[in-house]
């Protein structure tokens, strides 16, 4: 492929008290500055989560002149999908510099709700919401319960994912839990229950935050200040919108998404040096690693603490602004540039970012590599 990531940045994270367009502006202008570019260079924008006309909203706020825009709204995997669309648009010549951005002030605005979000006209309002699911926690709780029963595990394999995320966050000054000290398996098991077997420490944070990445042709990337990070492959899968929808809760769309991305890149999981998978819940990490082919079904717990995984501290301990997908990309890019300080994975050449949206509803995988 002939497209590269040339800029990456976070906006302010945590509890910011800032309007969402201010956070978007921070993410975009910081990522462009990182790339050695300005808003005048941007002719493509992919974002969501700001009103009904997200790209238009940002374009007017920053006075962008867009030849291409994209606003697929499918939860946290959208940003990995945007990479695929951006590569296609740049390769087709529709635009030349794409910004993929996201920001949320959900913690400051206290806008996160626990209940079902089914719109009254949709089937879930009739056939699921009346039974009282927490959305999305109950779906992941059921997947986790089936996971531990089917494979003969217990809650400790889930807790270990949260413990590993905290270990990484302690190495990342930008992480929400940077100063919180280490977590133990017992801390996770003893935390307030949410939807069994998941407790509150099995669930991602609720924070403000966001980020942006900038893409352009590899030819142009080689003239810009940062080492290019090449898009090697991408794939996605769309599975279910309801909890009753999937035939097998444990065989997620990560299987097809990963197969498509690895196939396009001509790579296998053993070629990947650093892995960023969406950790909305602890169970999401285990199911995604297995679906992507890093472990056989039921065996992902053996990778936790061994694999270079979620090096930022993830949605569990670093930042979770409602949709985490863009920050998976930011951390993958920084690892491949060797910018991660004490949490740097030595000599990382290939990174994987895998987003998951909704209730294991949408899945998108991106493979990135250093420019050889």
């Amino acid at each position, binding site marked *: 492929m002939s497209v590269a990531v040339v800029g990456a940045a976070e906006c302010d994270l945590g509890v910011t008290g800032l309007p969402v367009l201010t956070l978007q502006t921070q993410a975009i202008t910081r990522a462009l500055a990182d790339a050695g570019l300005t808003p005048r260079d941007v002719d493509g924008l992919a974002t969501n989560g700001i009103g009904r006309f997200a790209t238009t909203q940002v374009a007017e706020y920053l006075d962008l002149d867009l030849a291409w825009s994209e606003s697929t709204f499918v939860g946290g995997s959208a940003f990995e999908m945007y990479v695929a669309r951006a590569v296609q648009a740049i390769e087709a010549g529709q635009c030349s510099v794409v910004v993929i951005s996201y920001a949320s002030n959900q913690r400051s605005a206290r806008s996160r709700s626990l209940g079902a979000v089914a719109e009254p006209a949709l089937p879930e309002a009739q056939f699921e919401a009346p039974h*009282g699911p927490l959305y999305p926690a109950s779906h992941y709780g059921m997947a986790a319960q089936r996971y531990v029963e089917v494979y003969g595990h217990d809650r400790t394999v889930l807790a270990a994912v949260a413990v590993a995320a905290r270990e990484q966050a302690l190495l990342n000054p930008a992480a929400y839990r940077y100063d919180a000290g280490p977590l133990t398996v017992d801390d996770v098991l003893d935390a307030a229950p949410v939807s069994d077997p998941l407790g509150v420490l099995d669930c991602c944070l609720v924070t403000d935050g966001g980020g942006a990445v900038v893409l352009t042709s590899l030819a142009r990337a080689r003239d810009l200040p940062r080492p290019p990070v090449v898009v090697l492959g991408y794939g996605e899968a769309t599975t279910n919108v309801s909890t009753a929808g999937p035939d097998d809760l444990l065989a997620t769309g990560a299987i097809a998404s990963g197969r498509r991305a690895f196939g396009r890149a001509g790579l296998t999981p053993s070629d990947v040096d650093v892995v960023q998978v969406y950790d909305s819940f602890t169970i999401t990490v285990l199911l995604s690693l297995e679906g992507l082919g890093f472990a056989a079904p039921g065996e992902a717990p053996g990778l936790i603490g061994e694999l270079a995984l979620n090096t930022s501290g993830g949605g569990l301990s670093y930042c979770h602004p409602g949709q985490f997908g863009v920050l998976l990309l930011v951390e993958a890019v920084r690892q491949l540039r060797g910018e991660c300080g004490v949490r740097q994975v030595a000599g990382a050449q290939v990174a994987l970012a895998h987003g998951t949206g909704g209730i294991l509803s949408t899945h998108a995988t991106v493979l990135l590599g250093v420019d050889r």
Partner: protein
Amino acid sequence: MNADETIMPAPPQDPVTEPWWQATRERRLLLQHCASCERVQYPPRSVCTACVATELGWQEAAGIGEIDAWTVVRRSPGPGFDPPYVLARVRLAEGPVLLTTLPGSGPYRCGQPVALTWRPLSDGRRLPVFAPLE
């Protein structure tokens, strides 16, 4: 769930799903049946997803199934719900999977056989819920 079920808001229905909801008044759980290809599907929709037929009939479920997955809900998703209660995916003998509830607060096990019961709604319709067979 709360003993006073009438505080739960009555779910919406629409022209496609109305026969399904009306049958709940008679404690009958309906599944859509396609006469063209024999597919059985749930929830009701305006097309057979196997053969694209739009003339779909109904068949009554036997009301037997097994637990596919379950979770104890520990926080309230909103007004009318009183945790803890057990939410479950039940796979019917006919094939389709439903989201439903089980009595008490567990524990249950995946694969456990269950049978249909009903929970009344304030307007005379009912929600299909399940209880252990043994």
